[in-house]
């Protein structure tokens, strides 16, 4: 995921030992998601998928299935505006090399029509043929936050705010003497309790490479450098996926309005990124 995570846990001073241990457990969960779904670790599950997904399906556990259920649903509802199958295009555009990263893409190149398939019944992920290479970047970050928040609650923590790279935030409970955790989005302070917020911003990295958010499809290209989207959703993975889709295609905010309502997603802004937690 290549980003930093921060956890703020609230509780009584006498609970400090338990809070620290719960935080350690949550960070371990985040490390585990990184180990499974990093595009840059040769022994990750994603590296295995990118290398061999055209030849065999990869078995998923219940947590993995949650991740790919979100990815598949937003991919479909956004008509492909959200599509993790952009790793080759990202690599070709120089975004990884610019950051000194070597993605694990596999060596198989194939037809452009080849894509990824999540089988919800068999609980597997595979490719329809050689060629695809997934980059789960933002959605994996959100997924890590969701699992970490769940771990904290299972450890008995009742109030916490977690963020990944400040662009994805999930919170539950409230800090001491306040009604909710607050996140600033533009001029607005958004209260968070049991909900996540994510922002996607196509800030131009350089004139050479264009923005780091690509518009998937037959002719992959960078989205405009002024595009930004911030959304609230029941999970950070869902928020991240929709923020990306809306950054690519802002018109989805009304074209996919029914789906957004059904999934509990609120579009906060199509211009203002998150600023301060």
């Amino acid at each position: 995921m290549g980003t930093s995570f921060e956890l703020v846990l609230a509780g009584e001073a006498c609970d400090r030992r338990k809070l620290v241990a719960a935080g350690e457990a949550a960070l371990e969960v985040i490390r585990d998601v990184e180990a499974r779904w990093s595009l840059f670790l040769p022994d990750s599950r994603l590296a295995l998928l990118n290398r061999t997904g055209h030849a065999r399906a990869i078995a998923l556990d219940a947590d993995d299935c949650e991740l790919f259920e979100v990815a598949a649903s937003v991919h479909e509802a956004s008509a492909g505006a959200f599509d993790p199958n952009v790793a080759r295009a990202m690599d070709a555009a120089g975004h990884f090399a610019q950051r000194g990263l070597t993605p694990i893409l596999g060596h198989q190149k194939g037809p452009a029509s080849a894509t990824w398939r999540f089988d919800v019944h068999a609980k597997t992920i595979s490719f329809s043929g050689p060629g695809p290479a997934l980059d789960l970047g933002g959605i994996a970050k959100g997924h890590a936050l969701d699992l970490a928040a769940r771990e904290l609650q299972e450890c008995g923590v009742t109030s916490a705010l977690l963020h990944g790279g400040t662009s994805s935030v999930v919170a539950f409970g409230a800090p001491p003497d306040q009604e909710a955790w607050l996140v600033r989005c533009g001029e607005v302070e958004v209260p968070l309790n049991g909900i996540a917020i994510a922002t996607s911003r196509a800030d131009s990295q350089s004139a050479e490479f264009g923005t780091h958010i690509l518009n998937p499809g037959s002719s992959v290209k960078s989205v405009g450098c002024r595009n930004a989207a911030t959304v609230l959703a029941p999970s950070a993975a869902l928020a991240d996926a929709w923020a990306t889709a809306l950054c690519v295609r802002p018109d989805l905010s009304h074209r996919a309005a029914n789906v957004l309502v059904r999934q509990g997603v609120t579009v906060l802004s199509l211009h203002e990124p998150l600023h301060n937690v």
Partner: protein
Amino acid sequence: MSSSPLLPRRAILQGAGVLGAFGLAPTMAFEAPFWSPPGNTKVAVIGCGPWGRNIASELHGLEGSEVVAVADPVASRLRSAVRKAPTAKGFRSLTEALADSVEIQAVVVATPSHLHAAIVLEALAAKLPVYCEAPMATTLEDLIAIRAAAHSAGVPFTCGLHGRSNPLYAHARDFLRSGAIADFVGFRGQHHEKTSWFSPAVESKDEAELNWRLDPELSLGLAGEFGVHQFDVFHWYTGQYPIAVRGAGSIQLHKDGRKVHDTVHLDIEFPSSRFLHYDATIANSFQKRFEMFHGTAGAIKMAQQAGWLFKEADAPTIGFEVYAGRQQFHDEEGITLVADATKLAAQERIKNGVSLQEPPLRYSLKSFLMTVQEGAETHCDVDEGARASYVAISAAKAVRTGERIELDPKQFRKAD
């Protein structure tokens, strides 16, 4: 799952066969497949702490295995384990799982270390192949009982000492034993990991169960829990076992009333007056975990997913150096060790940096499944597991007492 492009599954076992020439390799092999189930091996994972869940998750994703049961007395851990292995049914114990109608064909033991013996003996009594995490036990009596039961059970037994199944470690061992660093001078090892070792319990009744590592009556502490995996690497690489161990421990960070040290230092004496200087701490994470072998022509550093050779100025040039990647460590240059370097060089991949294609745990579990399915030789048999565990028990005693503990050579002898 695919085999590693670096070293296919078969190659791992062939490598183990070569090691037999040094008289240290695992000895348990079955002339014919112990048992060849038509489909996946149905595995029970006993113990659902973080490591047990990790094992359940790996086995769930492995071709040739099906996790049919997970067992733990703590309900929250059991729920988490079932999420990691959705094909599994949850139980409170192995006893409960064996009494159920679910078919179990192999048992993986990942409970707290002091509970291993009873579960291993129960599984072996049921004639089930066993994979037992290390240390195998926390007392010499339990080790002897496990060793005897494993030898008489006639089913595969693997100790989860992962260095021996790690293809990079196997490659580096071959390299080292071919004289790459010439004569040994001494050894160093460390495990640094900043963590509290405390597990919060949702229900207070579970707190003692979850925090067994902080109970000095039950736990071997850092010397045992961390050290055992690394002591075995030194045994395996050098072909020698320690003569004596001295130790010291302290609490540097976690001053919360605990009795188990958060920092330990060991001096482990090997034959020919060579020493392993080992330290482990949960108060600092710098450089994490590694094993170092100092020789008269250079040094080799192994760090699970990666390994390096540091040459002395007067050391001869080695063939693969021309292909090899290099990394700078302050004023030392490390030559990256890569399994199957020549083949990778031909593919022009080596200079880009090649690391293990799978996590070390997956290699270990794959190797175990092959002992069950194909009668393959285990990467770490009960004797080697017991030897490393005996050193861990002795090291823990040295830390606890502050005394020099002499090791009994009988514990390192091969079984008749």
